[in-house]
């Protein structure tokens, strides 16, 4: 038997917060993207924990799909980043603020 669910959940929470703060603080687009991945992973961890807790395979299926979608998301996202930032070297997330009100 393994450690109690609470620990896993706590760990997932920590990873999630770190990822969230990282997303807000970093300006490099790719690093921001990586922080998103961190958050997704934290969520996956939570799903799996609950799958074990509640004895339900649905949790793991969810992780399965999250992984697929995350992959697709990364692909498209990086494609967009490439398209936008190709010309500008050293561009950061702060340089796109055309929707300023």
């Amino acid at each position, binding site marked *: 038997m393994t450690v109690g669910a609470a620990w896993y959940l706590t760990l997932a929470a920590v990873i999630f917060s770190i990822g969230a703060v990282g997303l*807000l603080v970093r*300006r490099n687009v790719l690093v921001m993207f990586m922080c998103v991945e961190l958050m997704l992973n934290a969520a996956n961890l939570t799903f799996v924990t609950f799958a074990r807790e509640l004895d339900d395979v649905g949790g793991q299926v969810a992780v399965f799909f999250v992984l697929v979608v995350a992959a697709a998301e990364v692909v498209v996202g990086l494609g967009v980043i490439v398209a936008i930032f190709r010309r500008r070297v050293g561009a950061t*997330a*702060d340089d796109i*603020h*055309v*929707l*300023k*009100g």
Partner: protein
Amino acid sequence: MLQAAFLIPLLPFLGFLVLVASGRRLGNPRAGWLATIMVLGSFIASLVVFVGLLGRSAGARSYTQTWYTWFSADRLHVTASLLIVPLSMTMALFVTGVSTLIHLYSIGYMEHDEGFPKFFLYLNLFVSSMLVLVLAGNFLFTFLGWEGVGVCSYFLIAFWFDRPAAASAGKKAMIFNRIGDAGFLLAMFLIFERTGSLQYLTVFSRLGQVGTTSLTAIALLLFLGAAGKSAQLPLYPWLADAMEGPTPVSALIHAATMVTAGVYLMCRISPILHLAPDAAHVVAIVGAATAFVGATIACAQNDIKKILAYSTISQLGYMFLAAGVGAYVAAIFLMLTHAFYKALLFLGAGSVIHAMNDDQDTKRFGALERLMPVTAVTFLVAWLSIGGVPPFSGFWSKGDVLMNAYAESPVLYAVAALTAILTAYYLGRCYLLTFRGQQRWVEARQSGDATHGEHGPLHPHDPGWVMRVPLVVLAVASVLGGLINLPFHSLEFLLRWLDPVVGGQLRTLHYSAGTQWAFAIGDAVLAALGVSIAVGFWREKSEQPALEPTFLRRAWFIDASYDRGIARPSTELAQVTSDDVETKVIDGAVNGLAGAFAAAGRRLRRVQTGYVRNYALGLMGGLVVLLAYVVVRATS
């Protein structure tokens, strides 16, 4: 025969409608003839109805013709109905008669005016409204006519509306009238409240149930309405300004008909006045005061029409004095004779004004007697009538009023007598300045004095036949008018005729024949005094500054004080409201509200920084809140 009553107000109204539709096409002078014929037709219809009424016995002279139900709401049931009684027929007869003459006169007078058809359209509408007023069978229908004549008066006074003075005079008339109308309305509310009806006959039959205070209030409120319409103190200044309108208008509306509506109303409500003696006293006192003030002002005026205007105010005061002391027949008698000679005076004045190329200043007239004989003679007749010289009509009618006034109070008699002297005097002054003395208009031209409306050399002459016929007819009426009600027993036609309507409320005089003769002689003396003073001072001279003090010329400064006390402050209030309240407070509030929204928008807009990271921060914030909610739910 009596069924023809509906024609009386209808014919002029039809004339109005036709002229509205095709007046301009008919043009000058056909539009005028159409209007005149309509009013003539109305006069004939009045005669027919009059004869029909005569055919009935004295006690049965009351006929109600209901056209339709105007409206009916809960207890209030108002019909459009006519009440044909001797009083209303008397009014209808002389209104239509004088109107016909004046319509005829106007065809000549307004010949060169562009608004010829419009003038007659208004005149016809006016006559129609006036007839509705006098023939109506209930207060509200009368009020309809009342308002109608007020509106037509406004239209006609401001006929030459591009003249600022005329436009403003029209407004002034309307406003003063309105103040009176408020009184009329309040009186109607009170009448309905107390008696449950607005029909004259019904109301009068129920007066017993109403308390004296209410009756006094009703009478006073109706008198307020009458004072507005008939230019009594304190609502009279509009009448002098109303002289801006064409002279036929002044003759018809502001001498013979509209202004007499107030007197008519007082006589109509004689049952109420009879039961409210306090109100009657007020009416009498105000009437006497007005008569006196009006006469004094007329003594110092130069404009011929203004003299006549103030004279009208003064004579109306007499009529109210008569009504106030319970001498209703005398009031109607005076109204009738006054209609004749005042209309005559105005038409004569119009003729003179026409001859002098629209100049109205008597100081620039003079010696027109030889040049305009018909006008001069008729004017003279009118002067002697209004002055009360026997045997002209004015002598008889004014004599009645004076006698009744004495019966009420010697003070009232004294005021009235003094006024009679003044009346003879100021109109004599007017006559002498215009028709005797030197040809001052020649001197004025030679000295290069530019008056308005001068077009080439003046050749004063009598007007054409359309304008002369009415003058002559009215002159004859002024001479013979007294025959209607001579104070000798079998000849008191008017008294007996009006008996069914006002008889019960008439003041009965118990004077012996000797006393009555004394009164008559006294009246003659008063007239003679006035005439001789006028002749003495004004036959040769044309300037007598001592007799024309500024105080009188400026009309006792009453109008000036209205201006200072009411008009200026309200204009300033309007100014303040428009400049400050409107722009700063109201606009400020509205704009401020808009500004507040705009400012709020500007502040809120700062949330949209454009930076993705800021938006993500917002998302996080929302997440925190959501989680907090879940935590609270979980732990509670």
